[in-house]
């Protein structure tokens, strides 16, 4: 604006003229325009981009952790001895079966009683309600007669048979004859649990066998599995096979 205009405007009563204001605005149109462009670009793209970068970085960090876990799991699984695991699984399932083990245990205890010269006078299977820590229980009650040391040997043997049984109660009465004979009521607990139905998520860390598990597996491997899981039918005797070739 020429100086004469300013001087002229100052001379006017009432201060600044409309023309001067318009001229002032025109002078600032470029910086204001630039400011507006920057504000608009920041609002539409800038903030969105920065926000996106921050959330992407966060996701990348999560993915890195997840992938490292997956990699570790893959390495552990590919390095595991499949044959050893298979054998350990068989032994472990024999010790704690995945179906009711009462008949198997019953058979095992009867076999042991037979080998120890202990007479089984009576037996009872008692279903127990509920499950504790994922294990289901069945009770077995035996009425036995025999020499004290034979009964003790039977008790000792039941602790070494698979499936795992626990003695919950022992009641003994001496015969009073002085020959060491006793009649004993032994209550056992047998255990079973359903097999795990689902595999954990791929991202879940792999639980490997610790030293305690290995020690327990060694103990379980020592258990004797005396009874079969199925009843083998007796061979036919005294019958004539009608389909046999003459």
């Amino acid at each position, binding site marked *: 604006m020429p*100086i004469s205009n*300013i*001087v002229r405007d*100052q001379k006017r009563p009432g201060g600044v003229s409309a023309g001067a204001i318009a001229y002032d605005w025109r*002078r600032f149109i470029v*910086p204001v*325009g*630039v400011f507006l*462009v*920057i504000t608009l670009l920041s609002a539409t793209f800038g903030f969105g*981009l920065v926000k*996106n*970068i921050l959330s*992407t970085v966060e996701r*990348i960090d999560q*993915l*890195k952790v*997840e992938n490292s876990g*997956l990699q570790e799991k*893959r390495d552990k*699984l*590919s390095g*595991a001895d*499949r044959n050893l*695991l*298979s054998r350990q*699984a068989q032994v*472990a399932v024999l*010790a*704690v079966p995945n179906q009711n083990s009462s008949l198997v245990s019953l058979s095992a205890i009867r076999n042991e009683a037979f080998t120890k010269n202990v007479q089984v006078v009576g037996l009872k299977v008692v279903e127990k309600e509920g499950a504790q*820590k*994922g*294990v289901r229980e069945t009770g077995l009650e035996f009425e036995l007669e025999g020499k*004290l040391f034979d009964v003790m040997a039977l008790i*000792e043997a039941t602790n070494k048979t698979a499936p*795992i049984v*626990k*003695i*919950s*109660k*022992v*009641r*003994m*009465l*001496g015969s*009073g004859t002085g020959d*060491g004979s*006793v009649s004993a009521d032994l209550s056992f607990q047998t*255990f079973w649990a359903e*097999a*795990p139905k689902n*595999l954990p998520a*791929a991202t879940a860390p*792999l639980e*490997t*066998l610790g030293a*305690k*598990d290995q020690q*327990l597996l060694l103990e*379980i491997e020592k258990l004797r599995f005396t009874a079969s899981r199925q009843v083998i039918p007796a061979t036919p005797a005294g019958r004539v096979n009608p389909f046999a070739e003459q």
Partner: protein
Amino acid sequence: MPLNSPTHSRTSGINLAGSLSHEFARFRKVEAIIKRTSFVVLGVYLVVLVGVAGINFFFLRQEGSLRKAGESLRGQINTLSPVEILLQTVKNRTSLAANILGTTQTPPERVLAQVVGILPLGATIAEVDAQEGKFSISVSLPNSGSVVEFFKSLSASSQFSNIEMDGLSLSNQGFYTVSLNIR
């Protein structure tokens, strides 16, 4: 021209123009700087904006490649699922077995075996009632010497924390019957 004439007073007012033009020149200078730097600022801003977009693109690509790697690892883990099933089965069964076997109480058959192990010659079991946390036994002993021997053996054994005598009787046949509560 006289000093008090109107022309003279107007002339003294115009003297202010000198200072105005000085401020105006400064103002013009600032205005020019702002105008020039506005474009520079805009340019720098645009470059920064393009840089930020580039960084965003880079991170998005990195995320994509990490996702791809994760999918590949999941596929490999899926192919190894039979091993994982075996491992989970073993782990599950061992933890169940530990729960079953891991009781703090001494099993009743162990206490029984320990007591039977220290019975003197000629002694017989009259009655036993043993369960977790409770063990009571009645032993028939042929003479007083064997009673003393039995008590000595019980006291010497470190297996029992508490022994209470419930009763001591002598039968017509000369047999001593000792009833004990052992923990």
